[in-house]
């Protein structure tokens, strides 16, 4: 059984900006351990002759020529923004006064 403790889950939740209750943290610690073990079983199936891969399709060098394509107008770009000003996305200040 993989060792995923409650603190690991709390840490990940913070990094991922996911709010989790104490109960959820406990439950998820157990569930994640099972998931990690399941994923691990893949490495048991792959023998030494199977190279590590980050992609399921054996492709490389899928490139685009350096030619300008379509763009949005500022209005289109901002159409899904929760808030905007001066043709720009408006977001809360990130850091407080030092």
């Amino acid at each position, binding site marked *: 059984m993989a060792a995923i403790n409650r603190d690991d889950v709390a*840490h990940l939740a*913070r*990094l991922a*900006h996911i709010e989790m209750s104490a109960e959820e943290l406990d439950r998820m610690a157990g569930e994640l351990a099972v998931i990690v073990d399941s994923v691990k079983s893949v490495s048991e199936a792959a023998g030494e002759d199977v190279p590590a891969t*980050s*992609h399921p*399709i054996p*492709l*490389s*060098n*899928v*490139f*685009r*020529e*350096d*030619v*300008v*394509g*379509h*763009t*949005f*107008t*500022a209005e289109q*770009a*901002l159409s*899904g923004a929760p808030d905007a*000003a*001066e*043709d*720009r*996305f*408006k*977001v*809360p*200040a*990130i*850091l*407080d*006064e*030092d």
Partner: protein
Amino acid sequence: MSADTILSFEEAMEKYDPVLGFEVHVELNTKTKMFSSAPNVFGDDPNTNVNEVDLGLPGVLPVVNKAAVESSIKIGLALNCKIAESCRFARKNYFYPDTPKNFQTSQYDEPIAYDGYLDIELEDGTVFRVEIERAHMEEDAGKLTHMGGAAGRIQGADYSLVDYNRAGVPLVEIVTKPIEGAGSRAPELAKAYVAAVREIVKNLGVSDARMERGNVRCDANVSLRPHGQERFGIRSETKNVNSLRAVEHAVRFEIQRHAAVLDSGQPVIQETRHWHEDTRTTTSGRAKSDADDYRYFPEPDLVPVVASREWVEELRATLPEPPAARRKRLQADWGYSDLEFRDVVNAGVMDSIEETVAAGASASAARKWWMGEIVGRAKTADVDPADLGVSPQTIVELNGLVEEGKINNKMASQVLDGVLAGEGTPAEIVEKRGLAVVSDDGPLLEAIDAALAAQPDVAEKIRGGKVQAIGAIVGGVMKATRGQADAGRVRELILEKLGVEG
């Protein structure tokens, strides 16, 4: 925020040994972005150079810009790096509004270029080798403008506005290995290193390399350790030091600040520092924390980049002569002393002199003109000498007129005025302004007779052997001919006239 205590640079150097490290981000000048076909253009209206890929809308698929990969390989080669046979992209995950996807597409464990070096020549000719750890491909972030609060700084801002035109612009991040042994020359080396990287990418034509536009940005890592200690001290990372001078100043300041912290018996805090050009100091950004836990993982939407050896060699064959090698070659060809050559480089006229020599001037004549008349005028006009509007052909022609004795140096200066005023070629201006040296002896002899008659006592002195008195007569002749006589010829004629040996 209280000002940091600092030690004098000299005292810091007596007690500690600095170790440096740099991350230089180079924005490529491709026509389009790294993973989208939106234009890569500086200074356009906000959020107009974006499409769905740059905004990270759901379900979009990035596609790698081939030209950006080629530029990255060229940079790697110019930095004497190995080029990875195969490499891949990775997601660097963090939440910050400059990155609409909540991750930056970068490279992590497989950079496209690695294990290189750059030989940096310091001002006195000392060569210092900086080892390059890696150069990897990634994308730039959007631009945040902090509104409200104090003077546009992030601290105390009420809100921020985001323009994603820059989001997705191709970047190459060049990371050095720790640089040891620079000692008191660390600030100078820092500046010279960033200058060399900028020069290389500009020479390759892969970046506009304008630091004031952020095309080349430097994060400077500094740590100190007591002399003789092997282990590195704790480092600080000063972000976005965006001029060559600032790089030098920031490294110097951080050395002084670290030294004071260590002297007080405290450990240096590992943190990001912000550089302030106005006060030439840094202030604390954020401490390194789990915010730096980026959870990199291979980018599932992009397949690996395989750089065949044929492709790499094709690209290598297109590389221009490295700037440092070119300088060495030109100095040797021109026969300038180290000092002369350094002045030429610092004045920014090396390229102009090269063109002028190619146009037919001698190296010494080209230097005389560019370093004299032209640099002076450029300074007055506050433009780069090359932008003054003097072509190499003009210099060749002007110099030819002087060497043939058709005009003297003083007239040449007036001819240059004429060229800059758009009056035509030097020969045309000589004609139009009537500037030719009077070489017909007739008018000169008349003027000499007049001058001798006007100063009979001087004439007598010369006859009596006091040849040095001749200046007064020559002066009279020059005045009478409004400076258009060849003074040497005038002197000859006077002596002849008076029957005195020169």
